[in-house]
């Protein structure tokens, strides 16, 4: 399964699937790494479709932000459901990621950062 990506200026939006779990974690991790290696370093992880995440899914997000920041970019999250938000807070990942209510806000944030 491939991740769905759209480009919005200098920002790429990755629409994460319904389930972000161990079964596909390695594939997604490599796909995002390849994207970052290809110069797409400002990423929004749009999570409005994500109904379920496990710790392997969370590790995909952490891997992505480490890769992006290592290349001078960043990863932000948007559209978290209450359950996913609870898991992110439980695991303290809200200290690592900027989190936005929707994709537009997230894109605007990264756009402004790139322009600054």
């Amino acid at each position, binding site marked *: 399964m491939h991740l769905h990506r759209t480009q919005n200026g200098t920002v790429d939006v990755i629409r994460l699937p319904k*389930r972000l779990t161990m079964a596909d974690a390695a594939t997604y991790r490599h796909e995002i790494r390849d994207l970052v290696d290809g110069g797409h370093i400002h990423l929004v992880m749009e999570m409005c479709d994500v109904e*379920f995440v*496990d*710790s392997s899914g969370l*590790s995909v997000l952490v891997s992505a932000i*480490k890769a992006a920041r290592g290349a001078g970019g960043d990863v932000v999250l948007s559209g978290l459901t209450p359950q996913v938000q*609870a898991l992110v807070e439980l*695991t303290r990942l809200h200290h690592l990621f900027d989190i936005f209510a929707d994709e537009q806000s997230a894109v605007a944030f990264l756009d402004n950062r790139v322009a600054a």
Partner: protein
Amino acid sequence: MKQLLLINIEPDNIPRAAEWIESICRSEGLPETDSYQVKTCVVEAINNAVEHAYGFGKGAISIGIWREGRQLMIEIANDNENRGSAAVTQDPEPVSVPVPESERGRGWLIIKSWVDDAVMDRLGGRTVVRLTKRVPI
């Protein structure tokens, strides 16, 4: 009455087990959020078995759930006896919050945080994770 599900360790079977557990939790009176949390913990326990004991495509896991008074008991067991000593499930990660940049160490934290009790036992070649969740009155 104990209800049991036996799954071969295949990627498609984990969501099936997860939905099965969540459905029973709901029918036993657990609120939606609690049921979701139990489901997440069961997935983490299965993941642990997949990661440390088998890998996908090998072996099976049994999941049992039953009611004891105001508590739901859930048991996730895998059988390592055909895999020798190298297959023994590793100790759970310490129950501490990993640094945010860490890519590992969150599974057992999630389990310990989202159920009322969680223990892991190794009995012979079997690794068993037992979870307890109180059902609100």
